[in-house]
């Protein structure tokens, strides 16, 4: 038999079966059997071929393609008898687990056009996983057009014989361990369309006539150790679409290697040692969307022509030696979303035209020599997410318009010459995570509205001339001192800062609006007043305090009530209550509750209050519970629930003043006070002012819940309970809890007390029911 026919289909099939037998994963090829024709096997394609033998014409099928991608095959490539497959045009074994070496015998695949062995990398383990070096014999595959061995831990260097593959269009060997230089013979590969050799250990100079055919579209040599010049042959490569050369040590003038590339979409030359200037011809790259040349030694000015690239979306020329002004013409780059020109020597001002960059998301001009003011037009960059102008010579005031931006990530204006105050409008940046205004000449206060910046994770105000109190919110209280050092006179609760003296602390900054229109917060800010004021209606001499007198010498009656704000004397109020109860004598005790004892107090004006005295416990939790109680109760406006008037905190105890409800009636005086709610704090001086301040600050700054919205559930529960008789004597319910859970618990455990005030609520006498309002 002639040699040609000896490699008939059965012979070819047998070779494949022999290979299958060497694999660890034979079950994946279960269609490969002796009984069936190879042409029906998984991944095998045949074509008819006409064979002439003497005067006989035989039509013989022969294997032309083997495509077994992503099958998880495990085994060696070298056990495949390549010489048995002379007609093979396509061999695709990508994404399997083959190891061993690429055998020299592969050269017998003389008709091979497409060879893909990529992604055969073993993930881990002791099995030798490298596919070895590229054999020189690869140069015999003269028909090869597409050669992919990416991601395989290939070692060794690229054989010179590769230059023989003149039909080669695609050569991809990314993510391997290939070393050595590119052989000069690679310049013979004039048909190259795509050359990808990134993420290897290649070194040396690139042949300067590489891809001189001008057909090259995609060149990626990233993260190797290439040096010398970028091939000058690229300058005339008008078909270039994508060029990635970042992460090497290329030197030389970029304008020698690049000219006009009308199809160029993406170019990244970053992190090399390139020099020269940015040529105007870049402006003719009308399809360029991404231009990155960061981290080189480019000099000269930014050519205006850059702004002529209509599709430019990302421009990164940072970390070079560029000088001159920022061209105003940049306004034309309407698709530009990422502009990084940091770390250069740019001078002049930030053009106000930047306000036209409506797509801009990231703007980094830091570390230059820019001067002048921040143009207010920058507020038109609605999508700006990150703005860094740090390390420049910018001056003037920080424009309040920056507060109109929707910055999420960073606002960094540090290391400039900004003067004036910190604009309060910056507090509108409620999504901002990082704010840096350090190393400037800012004066005045840190706006207390900064506590509204809920998303802040870091804020640096150090090295300025700021004074006054640090705003009261969690991030400020927990801040490290480094965020505030080197200022004029900051004070506050930050560890390392002095506490604020009373005269310097203002409650004026706190303007809290409450949604509930029923509750009116009245705060009188004056420098000397630390607390809300309330008026003592009629101060009666102590020995007369139990009688109802109408005249007073020291106080006015306004609106017929004791609790009015216009004048404040906390000590008087406290004194009134102490006197009214004869220092909480038992004869005024009307009940005992969960946390404390309840007394009745009739003050000199004739008003009567229920005072719940809570023994001050030294732990944080109780203190917090106390505050929570106040907050919870002050919200409640309901006919079935007692109204809280105020609280007092001393070093020994706390007490709360509630309205006193006589059985079945409501004090006429108290009714007029319904619409007013007062928070008062009357304190003995030994309680440090800071504590009171914190208490009030927490109380005021914490947005309160709208009772109508949020306590409906609670109130309807109580209504239902009252209607059903589950809770008797509705008007006398004494409700006080920090949350609903505790409320229910207290309702159940509240013990009997004075008939005039607290309700008698006994669980035992009623059938316990579950409620579904």
């Amino acid at each position: 038999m002639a040699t040609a026919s000896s490699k008939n289909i059965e012979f070819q099939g047998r070779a494949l079966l022999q290979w299958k037998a060497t694999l660890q994963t034979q079950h994946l090829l279960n269609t490969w059997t002796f009984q069936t024709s190879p042409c029906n096997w998984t991944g095998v394609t045949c074509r008819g071929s006409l064979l002439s033998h003497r005067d006989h014409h035989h039509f013989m099928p022969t294997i032309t393609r083997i495509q077994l991608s992503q099958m998880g095959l495990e085994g060696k490539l070298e056990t495949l008898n390549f010489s048995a497959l002379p007609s093979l045009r396509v061999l695709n074994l990508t994404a399997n687990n083959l190891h061993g070496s690429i055998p020299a015998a592969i050269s017998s695949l003389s008709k091979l056009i497409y060879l893909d062995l990529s992604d055969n990398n073993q993930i881990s383990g002791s099995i030798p996983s490298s596919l070895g070096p590229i054999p020189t014999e690869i140069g015999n595959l003269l028909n090869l057009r597409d050669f992919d061995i990416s991601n395989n831990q290939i070692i060794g260097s690229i054989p010179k014989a590769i230059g023989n593959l003149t039909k080669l269009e695609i050569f991809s060997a990314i993510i391997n361990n290939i070393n050595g230089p590119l052989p000069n013979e690679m310049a013979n590969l004039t048909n190259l369309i795509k050359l990808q050799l990134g993420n290897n250990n290649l070194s040396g100079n690139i042949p300067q006539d590489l891809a001189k055919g001008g057909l090259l579209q995609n060149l990626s040599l990233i993260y190797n150790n290439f040096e010398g010049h970028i091939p000058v042959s690229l300058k005339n490569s008008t078909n270039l679409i994508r060029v990635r050369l970042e992460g090497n040590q290329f030197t030389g003038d970029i304008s020698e290697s690049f000219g006009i590339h009308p199809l160029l979409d993406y170019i990244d030359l970053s992190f090399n040692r390139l020099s020269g200037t940015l040529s105007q011809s870049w402006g003719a790259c009308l399809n360029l969307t991404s231009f990155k040349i960061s981290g080189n030694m480019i000099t000269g000015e930014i050519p205006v022509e850059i702004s002529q690239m209509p599709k430019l979306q990302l421009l990164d020329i940072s970390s070079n030696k560029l000088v001159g002004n920022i061209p105003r013409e940049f306004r034309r780059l309407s698709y530009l979303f990422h502009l990084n020109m940091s770390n250069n020597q740019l001078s002049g001002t930030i053009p106000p035209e930047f306000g036209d960059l409506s797509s801009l998301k990231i703007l980094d001009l830091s570390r230059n020599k820019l001067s002048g003011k921040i143009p207010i037009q920058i507020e038109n960059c609605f999508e700006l997410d990150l703005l860094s102008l740090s390390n420049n010579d910018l001056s003037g005031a920080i424009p309040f318009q920056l507060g109109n931006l929707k910055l999420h990530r960073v606002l960094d204006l540090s290391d400039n010459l900004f003067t004036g105050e910190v604009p309060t409008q910056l507090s509108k940046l409620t999504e901002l995570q990082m704010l840096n205004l350090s190393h400037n000449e800012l004066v005045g206060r840190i706006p207390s509205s900064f506590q509204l910046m809920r998303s802040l994770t870091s804020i640096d105000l150090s090295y300025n001339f700021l004074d006054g109190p640090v705003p009261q919110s969690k991030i400020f209280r927990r801040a490290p001192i480094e965020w505030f050092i080197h200022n004029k006179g900051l004070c506050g609760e930050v560890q390392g800062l002095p506490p604020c003296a009373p005269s310097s602390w203002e409650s004026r900054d706190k303007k809290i609006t409450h949604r509930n229109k029923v509750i009116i917060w009245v705060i009188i800010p004056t420098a000397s007043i630390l607390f809300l004021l309330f008026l003592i209606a009629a101060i009666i001499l102590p020995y007369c305090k139990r009688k109802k007198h109408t005249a007073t010498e020291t106080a006015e009656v306004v609106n017929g009530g004791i609790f009015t704000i216009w004048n404040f004397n906390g000590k008087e109020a406290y004194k009134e209550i102490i006197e009214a109860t004869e220092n909480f004598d038992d004869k005024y005790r009307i009940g005992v509750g969960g946390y404390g004892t309840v007394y009745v107090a009739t003050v000199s004006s004739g008003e009567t209050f229920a005072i719940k005295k809570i023994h001050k416990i030294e732990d944080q939790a109780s203190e917090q519970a106390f505050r929570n109680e106040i907050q919870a109760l002050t919200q409640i406006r309901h006919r079935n629930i007692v109204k809280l008037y105020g609280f007092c905190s001393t070093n020994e105890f706390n007490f709360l003043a509630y309205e006193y409800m006589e059985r079945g009636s409501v004090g006429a005086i108290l009714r007029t006070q319904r619409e007013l709610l007062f928070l008062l704090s009357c304190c003995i001086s030994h309680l440090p002012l800071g504590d009171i301040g914190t208490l009030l600050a927490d109380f005021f700054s914490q947005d309160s819940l709208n009772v109508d919205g949020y306590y409906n559930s609670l109130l309807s529960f109580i209504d239902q309970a009252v209607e059903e008789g589950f809770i008797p004597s509705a008007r006398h319910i004494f409700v006080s809890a920090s949350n609903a859970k505790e409320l229910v618990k207290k309702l159940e455990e509240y013990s009997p007390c004075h008939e005039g005030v607290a309700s008698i609520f006994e669980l035992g006498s009623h059938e316990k029911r579950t409620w579904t309002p």
Partner: protein
Amino acid sequence: MAPLVLLPSLYLLLLAAPLAISTNSEGEALHALRTRLSDPRGVLQSWDPTLVNPCTWFHVTCDDHNHVIRLDLGNSNISGPLGPELSQLQHLQYLELYKNNFEGKIPEELGNLKNLISIDLYENRLHGSIPKSFGKMKTLRFMRLNNNKLTGSIPRELAKLSNLKVLDVSNNDLCGTIPVDGPFPTFPFQSYENNSRLNGPELQGLVPYDFGC
């Protein structure tokens, strides 16, 4: 791994080793998402699935190991449904999809994003409920789901998110009660406003509540 040890270049070790996994699962996941979306502004035009990884795609940010850590598609006029494949971005830290026209439900699988710091889905057209699986996002600091058409209740599981600093579920159609545990007491009432069926803080304790939510 013996051949690797012989390599002189340490940084290549760092690059090559993590890239050992051959499939581009993160790029494929993003591509699968993209095929379902309508993108009139062409914001996703750079999302070429034939590239070896999505790290050069616009609005995608990767870390040094070529894993996607940020997706910044806010305010891009994109419409279409989200999908479970986003959960394959296991290193994702910032999911910024706000101010678009995303519709359909919030995929439950997003709860598998163990490194997520910020999820901003606000101002879209999402419906359905907030997935309980969001309680697994232990590193989460910002959750903004406001201005959608979300229904159902605020899952109690969210109280486990001890790092959550900002929660905004306002302007939806949520019902039931608001959890009172974990970080919830720190959130101001604006976080919940304009949810007409939302009933205030939950009532724990002896009286079981059913709001028919």
